[in-house]
């Protein structure tokens, strides 16, 4: 039963995911598991300098070894943006596939393909490059100062060339209401600087591409991507191959977390090599190369909030500088999202925002699960705790007084994507979570002595479900679904949407089974590619269930209508009086007239009859744009223990509550929250990729030995991690469902940080809160 009073047959049931069998047997094939006969192995020559100019490059020896070699000269000099989610007026282009002006250690200069990986490596090492080494700039605040090194002279906005001044990649300012007046009315005004880290996605599967050149001049591509259609569009944009001859296969992803929203560079590099060699080419990065390929955005916030003594917020001002590394993947849309995340947490009668994205000679930043929301939420939730303390209010009550909820305007994905919130379970999440964790019994900040100190913290947040809206805006967001009914009553579901692992496609299958009244087993998620699917923008923005599921539901409705119409002919009944029920024994759906004995036919028999009578295929194809992007809400209550001798923090207990509308896959939904907490834990206390100021390279040089992510031993026991769902009904979602993937993480780091502060009575303004930082803070506190 859901909150709306509807009871479901399939949705909300614990079912075995369809791809589970292949995955436990080691038979699931990811991009790097594909091999072609006669394929060449590729390696990429990368800049050893953070900032340089290629004076000359000599590839003759490599070619003499029999390798196919490409440099920037072999690829059309098309400046592009690897992420095609935004519309042209919101898309900055500053990338080349291979460059003669490397802007970070690891930027591809040339590539080779040879008969074996070893031969390719040998050829690579024989390439002679003469560099003019330029002064690098690694700190975003230094980068903004005049007179320093400039990374880009000009870049493209859409097709228009724009000059870059002071390494400012792009900026955004937004204001609403009278901010000065708002701060004037406040009894308490706090202003703080917050700094986050540059994290690495550390997705288990490294970036990989296999490309087969086809006889018609096209290419077939098996690669790591969250969007097969945008990959195809980009390859068309760079190489001019007709779109219909570019076939990108939908594959499972070994985790991605945003690192393949954009097309990974391995794809165009492998395409260029395959076209030149006239043979299949496989390019799989090493882990060290992968860590030189993408990172999260580092943000430096200056936040000012004002509140009245009764706890009501009056005004807010936020200035953000974001280190985006050497190129723009989606910096401009992110500037919009950050203000959206900020103003959609708590009601601010007046607000002012300035966001600036700055180039540095570092690995390019891209979205990482939450897209700036985890950082923003940590900042806001840290200050909200401080404000509550300043006005003498329980931090939980302070949140309840100010949160953006039902009926309020939600800034979804920024100022261009606004909608009204129609479902919200925030209050219930906070009340139930507080009870489960024992919020009332939490210690007073700083009251503990002794070596081990415990604290309880709260982090509350949300994320959008898709980037849908009532108007077009600057973000593309729609999905496609094709359904075909087969002669044995089974259903083929064809979609371009990639499952990152969370089970989006499993949810679609359940939605289809629910709507059609058939057993879940008969809905097959079939293999698909760009040539056989309708467009889907990308699996990002927690849109898998909400937007992709929305398309699947509409396709199922259409097919159902056709089934009932044909059944009405056969049964001599009226289509609107017919229903479908699943027959587990027959393993398919049965169409029947209620209450009339004998008036029934299985979907298989009906479809077979349709074939014999030449009525045609019972099928539907739907392209669906969601008209909203409803927030799904979460809160984490974390109890931690700080060892004041070593500075180490240990999670003791976690309680997490979520409002995701109708819950479709309960165990997978819980799994999202478990994983979201682990990633939030990493953000809070573990993860960063500092740079070596001498070499301009990552200090860890790409070795994950020195990039710690949480292990099983670092996480709390199963019984100490409680997850609950507050079920609401989202009227715009499929069967009332919303997204989950990102809110599952967004407030986790905030909860951990607030718990540490609760334990120690010290606040931290920089992430990660490492043992060194904790010990230093304790020393300073005395």
């Amino acid at each position, binding site marked *: 039963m859901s909150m709306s009073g509807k009871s479901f047959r399939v949705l909300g049931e*614990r079912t075995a*995911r369809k791809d589970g069998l292949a995955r436990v047997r*080691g038979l699931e*094939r990811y991009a790097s598991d594909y*091999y072609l006969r006669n394929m060449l192995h590729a390696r990429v020559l990368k800049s050893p300098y953070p900032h340089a100019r290629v004076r000359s490059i000599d590839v003759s020896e490599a070619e003499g070894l029999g390798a196919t070699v490409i440099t920037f000269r072999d690829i059309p000099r098309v400046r592009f943006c690897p992420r095609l989610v935004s519309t042209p007026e919101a898309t900055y282009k500053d990338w080349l596939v291979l460059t003669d002006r490397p802007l970070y250690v690891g930027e591809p200069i040339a590539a080779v393909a040879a008969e074996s990986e070893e031969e390719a490596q040998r050829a690579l090492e024989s390439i002679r490059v003469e560099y003019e080494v330029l002064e690098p700039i690694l700190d975003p605040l230094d980068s903004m100062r005049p007179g320093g090194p400039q990374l880009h002279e000009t870049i493209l906005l859409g097709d228009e060339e724009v000059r870059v001044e002071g390494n400012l990649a792009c900026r955004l300012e937004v204001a609403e209401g009278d901010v000065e007046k708002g701060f004037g009315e406040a009894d308490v005004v706090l202003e703080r600087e917050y700094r986050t880290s540059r994290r690495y996605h550390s997705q288990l599967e490294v970036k990989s591409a296999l490309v087969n050149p086809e006889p018609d001049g096209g290419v077939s591509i098996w690669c790591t991507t969250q969007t097969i259609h945008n990959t195809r569009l980009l390859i068309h944009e760079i190489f001019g191959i007709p779109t219909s001859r570019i076939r990108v296969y939908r594959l499972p992803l070994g985790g991605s977390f945003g690192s393949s929203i954009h097309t990974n560079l391995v794809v165009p590099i492998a395409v260029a090599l395959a076209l030149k060699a006239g043979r299949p080419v496989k390019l799989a990065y090493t882990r060290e190369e992968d860590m030189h390929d993408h990172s999260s955005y580092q943000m430096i916030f200056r936040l000012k909030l004002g509140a009245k003594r009764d706890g009501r917020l009056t005004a807010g001002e936020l200035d953000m500088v974001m280190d985006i590394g050497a190129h723009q993947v989606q910096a401009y849309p992110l500037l919009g999202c950050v203000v959206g995340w900020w103003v959609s947490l708590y009601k601010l009668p007046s607000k002012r925002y300035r966001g600036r994205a700055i180039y540095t000679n570092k690995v390019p930043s891209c979205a990482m699960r939450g897209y700036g929301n985890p950082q923003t939420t940590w900042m806001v939730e840290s200050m909200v705790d401080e404000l509550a303390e300043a006005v003498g209010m329980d931090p939980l009550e302070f949140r309840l007084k100010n949160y953006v909820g039902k009926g309020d305007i939600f800034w979804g994905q920024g100022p261009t994507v606004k909608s009204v919130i129609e479902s919200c379970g925030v209050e219930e999440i906070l009340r139930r979570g507080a009870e489960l964790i024992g919020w009332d019994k939490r210690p007073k900040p700083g009251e503990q002595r002794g070596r081990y100190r415990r604290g309880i913290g709260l982090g509350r947040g949300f994320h959008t479900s898709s980037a849908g809206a009532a108007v077009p805006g600057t973000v593309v967001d729609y999905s496609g679904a094709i359904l075909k009914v087969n002669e044995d009553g089974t259903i083929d579901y064809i979609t371009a949407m990639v499952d990152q692992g969370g089970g989006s496609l499993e949810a679609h299958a359940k939605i289809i089974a629910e709507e059609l009244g058939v057993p879940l087993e008969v809905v097959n998620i079939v293999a698909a590619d760009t040539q056989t699917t309708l467009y889907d923008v990308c699996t990002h923005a927690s849109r898998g269930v909400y937007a992709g599921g929305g398309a699947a539901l509409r396709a199922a409705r259409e097919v159902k209508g056709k089934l009932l119409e044909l059944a009405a002919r056969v049964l001599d009944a009226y289509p609107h009086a017919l229903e479908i029920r699943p027959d587990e024994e027959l393993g398919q759906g049965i169409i029947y007239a209620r209450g009339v004995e004998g008036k029934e036919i299985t979907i298989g028999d009906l479809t077979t009859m349709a074939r014999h009578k030449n009525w045609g295929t019972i099928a539907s194809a739907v392209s669906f744009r969601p008209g909203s992007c409803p927030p799904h809400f979460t809160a984490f209550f974390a109890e931690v223990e700080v060892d004041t001798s070593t500075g180490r923090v240990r999670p003791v207990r976690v309680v997490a509550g979520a409002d995701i509308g109708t819950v479709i896959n309960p165990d997978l939904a819980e799994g999202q929250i*478990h994983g979201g907490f682990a990633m939030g834990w990493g953000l809070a206390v573990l993860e960063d990729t500092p740079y070596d100021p001498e070499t301009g390279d990552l200090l860890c040089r790409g*070795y994950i030995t020195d990039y710690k992510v949480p*292990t*099983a*031993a670092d996480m709390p026991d199963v019984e100490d991690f409680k997850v609950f769902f507050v079920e609401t009904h989202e009227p715009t979602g499929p069967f009332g469902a919303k997204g989950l993937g990102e809110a599952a993480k967004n407030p986790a780091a905030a909860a951990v940080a607030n718990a540490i502060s609760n334990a120690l009575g010290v606040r931290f303004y920089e992430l990660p809160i490492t043992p060194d930082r904790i010990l230093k803070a304790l020393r300073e506190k005395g």
Partner: protein
Amino acid sequence: MRIEFTLNGRRRRVDVEPNQLLLNLLRDELGLTGAKYGCGIGVCGACTVLLDGEPVLSCLILAVEVDGKTVETIEGLGEGGRLDPLQEAFIETGAIQCGFCTPGFIMAAKALLEENPEPTEREIREYLKGNLCRCTGYVNIVKAVKLAAERAKYLT
């Protein structure tokens, strides 16, 4: 070099290079892609296989080292077309998300349960801390190992 070893119950004779890694032999030559490359330096555990019953990282083992020995990979798990209790438990508890780390986890957990059929939760977590997962937060994986251990106990 010619080596001979037992792979998932079958005798295999193959020619290998002296510097060839077991992981590459399995994946590139023998078509067994269940063991994954995740780091190549023995940190992530995605390439875990059993060598004479012991869990090893196939990215750190030379193919020549398995000469005369027995190698078991994820593809060889389960008997007579039936899944191993660990495989069943991983499906049932929602322990699989992207699935990339799953084969490594199942092989490591297999070795754990052979060594210690009734592990405590902390023992499970300690044993599996050499296998990284970025999706699940490990909760459902630990549940799966517990469930498989309980079922095995019940069976014996």
